[in-house]
């Protein structure tokens, strides 16, 4: 029988300061996960994996933002939230991008860090007063839904990776697991031991985004995605448009690259870049969905290539100019997408019209991102330099593309033959049905 007494105190649980410190670790892990996923995106060759990670880095940015805000609610100094991290945890997370294959990278993320992160969230909830720390519990419970879904979504992709590559990645997986254990786990509450600095996988060079956007070896080699001639028929217009959409993966890779290479930006930058990259991957998926429905084989019947990125990098410019090129394209996008919506609706292609409608809405965000962060990067010179840089980036791209076409180095011949054959076959089928 319950007895009323003043002695039935609860067992002491975590206080505000300790909770803030743990949540700041969770914020750091989510933040560095999205930076790692973004940075390595350019290097991923397996298309299914390349298509998977932008959604995960975007959701990780939402998790990180929720925990960052929650940390600030818990008497944690604003000036420390983005900088005062456990150096061991930071070093461990910095190892993730030192992977050397798709399998190493993916297994490090989906078989080491994310499972450990899920366990850390569960551990956090198990050790907290769910009344006193209810807002944290709310964020963690919602984050767990996403993180568990990430693991489920990754499994078939990992199963599709080259089995020899996966087998060869096991020492890397073991190294990361050992490293994480040695620092006491994600929350840092476990026993600590010596770091595995003598492991064969230790000491690899720091990762940098490569100068070329890697594409799946199952695809035919490609140089440019744009056909040399304009479309001659409405059907060609639909196909050209979908190919352009399908190739927007480069525009997902670029925000990812910026998230990695620009390591000390304001937190809002990573939020914006994460969303931008994910949107562009969705746009690529829109095009691929259309082309697949029309019977086109991705990367075989049409090119898949990151040519705008190559154009800027090959001419000796860096990521800032690539960002300017992205903004150069975005500036014209609302007019273009609005017209596309109307045009494809008039042709009865309501799928392409609807793709354009949502793409058009996304562009409003991207224009704000581009303008805001170009201004930030250019600093005091932005007023003069921003329009100059955007113009220069556009000219670099146009010149590079024109040169490929003029010299016959666009590599488009085989693709054009297959595109025309596919359209002819589809039209013949339609006529037969009619």
């Amino acid at each position, binding site marked *: 029988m319950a007895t009323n007494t003043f002695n039935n105190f609860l067992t002491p649980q975590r206080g505000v300061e300790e909770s803030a410190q743990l949540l700041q670790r969770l914020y750091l892990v989510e933040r560095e996960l999205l930076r790692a996923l973004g940075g390595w995106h350019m290097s991923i060759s397996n298309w299914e994996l390349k298509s998977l990670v932008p959604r995960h880095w975007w959701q990780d940015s939402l998790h990180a933002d929720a925990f960052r805000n929650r940390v600030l609610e818990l008497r944690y100094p604003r000036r420390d939230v983005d900088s005062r991290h456990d150096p061991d945890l930071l070093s461990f997370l910095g190892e993730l991008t030192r992977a050397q294959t798709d399998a190493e990278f993916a297994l490090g993320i989906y078989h080491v860090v994310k499972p450990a992160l899920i366990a850390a969230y569960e551990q956090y909830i198990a050790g907290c007063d769910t009344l006193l720390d209810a807002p944290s519990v709310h964020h963690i419970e919602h984050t767990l839904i996403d993180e568990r879904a990430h693991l489920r979504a990754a499994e078939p992709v990992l199963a599709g990776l080259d089995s020899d590559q996966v087998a060869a990645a096991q020492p890397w997986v073991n190294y990361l697991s050992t490293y994480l254990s040695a620092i006491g786990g994600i929350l840092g509450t476990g026993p600590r031991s010596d770091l595995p600095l003598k492991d064969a996988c230790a000491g690899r060079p720091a990762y940098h985004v490569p100068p070329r956007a890697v594409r799946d070896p199952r695809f035919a080699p490609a140089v440019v995605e744009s056909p040399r001639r304009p479309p001659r028929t409405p059907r060609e217009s639909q196909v050209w448009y979908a190919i352009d959409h399908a190739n927007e993966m480069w525009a997902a890779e670029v925000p990812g690259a910026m998230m990695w290479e620009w390591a000390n930006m304001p937190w809002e930058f990573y939020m914006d870049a994460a969303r931008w990259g994910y949107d562009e991957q969705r746009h690529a998926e829109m095009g691929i969905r259309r082309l697949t429905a029309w019977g086109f084989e991705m990367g075989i019947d049409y090119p898949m290539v990151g040519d705008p990125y190559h154009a800027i990098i090959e001419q000796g410019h860096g990521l800032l100019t690539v960002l300017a090129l992205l903004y150069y394209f975005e*500036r014209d*996008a*609302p007019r273009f997408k609005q017209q596309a919506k109307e045009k494809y609706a008039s042709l009865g292609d309501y799928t392409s019209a609807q793709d354009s409608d949502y793409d*058009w*809405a996304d*562009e*409003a965000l991207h*224009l704000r991102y581009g*303008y805001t962060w170009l201004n930030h990067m250019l600093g005091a010179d932005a*007023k003069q330099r921003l329009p100059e840089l955007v113009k220069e980036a556009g000219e670099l791209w146009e010149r590079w593309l024109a040169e490929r076409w003029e010299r016959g180095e666009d590599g488009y011949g085989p693709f054009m033959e297959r595109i025309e054959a596919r359209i002819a076959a589809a039209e013949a089928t339609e006529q037969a049905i009619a």
Partner: protein
Amino acid sequence: MNANLVDVAVMVTLTNGYSFEVFPNETVLDAAIRAGIPIPYSCRSGTCRTCISRVISGSIEHDPEYLDDLLIDQDEVADGYRLLCSSLAHTDSVIERDD
């Protein structure tokens, strides 16, 4: 601002030849859309800058309620630029558009 000026519809003319009526408390962009005038736009909230245009004559000002949210700097405003999605026309006005 003279309150009487916003109680009546005004005419806005674009240098590309289009003209349209703008009602009180209606944004210039909304009026253009209503009239079927093709002005590129996207966010409709003053943050994407797609509809930025220079006012050559008349009085078109940003809606004061949302000034802090607009992605336009004071130099541009001083030079006559306005985000049409977030602007109200107070008198008959002319806007530079070459598209």
